[in-house]
């Protein structure tokens, strides 16, 4: 988070300063990558890279604070993921290269990787019960701390619709946990 320095960083980004863009990338890219991994995006790294390139192109049309900027990046990223998913559905799958498998593999510590893999499997069982919109709303709300209004801008729905999606999604998760289908 940039806090009070956000204005100067944004101005430097508008002028094309590499340091500013690198700071923004290092601040927001981890959240974007986590969001895409959780929602099951096919190639999160590519989507995040495309997101920032599009942000560079469209920055002249942006106006807002740091929170709005984060929400704007999530909106671009979600749309980009949808475009890539549509494109991928039209072309045949290809085998992954070795470098991609290495990057997608463990991050270092074996025990941490095992715990994370188990937790990811349980969480994915729960998230798979949700509709795509419910999943997006809950991930942006619980994981990324976006406000209802910011989520409404990301998924292009009204705040009331976002609240309804959130309520139904949480109820679905509660039923899944209480039925014992998933052990947290």
């Amino acid at each position, binding site marked *: 988070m940039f806090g009070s320095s956000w204005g100067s960083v944004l101005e430097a980004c508008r002028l*094309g300063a*590499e340091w500013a*863009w*690198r700071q923004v*990338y*290092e601040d927001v*890219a*981890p*959240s974007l*990558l*986590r*969001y895409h*991994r*959780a929602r099951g995006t096919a190639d999160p*790294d590519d989507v*995040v*890279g495309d997101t*920032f*390139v599009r*942000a*560079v*192109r469209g920055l*002249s049309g942006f106006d807002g604070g740091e929170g709005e900027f984060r929400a704007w990046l999530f909106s671009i990223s979600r749309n980009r993921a949808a475009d890539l998913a549509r494109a991928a559905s039209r072309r045949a799958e290809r085998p992954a290269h070795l470098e991609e498998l290495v*990057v997608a593999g463990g*991050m270092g510590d074996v025990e941490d990787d095992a*715990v*994370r893999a188990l*937790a*990811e499997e*349980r*969480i*994915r069982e*729960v998230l798979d019960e949700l509709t795509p919109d419910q999943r997006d709303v*809950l991930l942006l*709300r*619980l*994981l990324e*701390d976006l406000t209802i209004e910011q989520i409404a801008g990301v998924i292009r729905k009204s705040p009331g619709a976002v*609240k309804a999606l*959130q*309520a139904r999604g*949480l*109820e679905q*998760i*509660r039923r899944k*946990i*209480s039925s014992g289908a998933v052990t*947290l």
Partner: protein
Amino acid sequence: MRRSLDPDDPIGSSSSADPDGERFVEDLRTAFPAQPAPHGIADDHVAAMMAAVELAAEGAASQAGGADGRPASPRRRTMRHRITVRIAAVVTGLLLSMGGLAIAGAFPGSDDADDQQAVVTDLDENVDIPDAIEDVADDQGEDADELADADDQGENEDADENEDADENDDADETEDADDQGEDGDDQGEDVEENDADDQGEDEGDVEENDDQQGEDTDDGIEDGGDSQD
């Protein structure tokens, strides 16, 4: 930060957060931690962003150049050239087609009036035709024009022109007295045939009437005879 599955308070700001909800959110964060992108990928992304910055700057510069009246970019010049060539091709095609139509005489006012006048001029210069024959020849021409007009029911004008030419050839044949007479006979025959037909039909009607009269007469006589009997 404490989390819950309470729809009214999903981020667990109140004290009513349920333990299952908190655990779910914790597991969610454990399963999907916010980790920075690997170094190589991050560098690639930043390099792509800088390339986009340069492209955007070039685009802005070219737009500003166009607004200031400086020479347009090569791409814009190419587009202008293409548009100019296309417009020139269309105009040339139109001119060629219009010229072809004009040569073919397809426009109104380009009929064969001048050609006919030229033929009549030839007649006046080369042939010494008596007035009566000239009248006949003129009448033939007029009739021929009328017939040609009557026949002109969507036929092509070239055919009519050929008809006119044939009639003018007939007029040229008026050098021979026999031909003139034949033409005159033709007219007479036409008239006589029409009249003869009409008269014949009328005569037939008259004869039928005569017959009827005769029959009536006979009947009257027969009746008279019968009555006499």
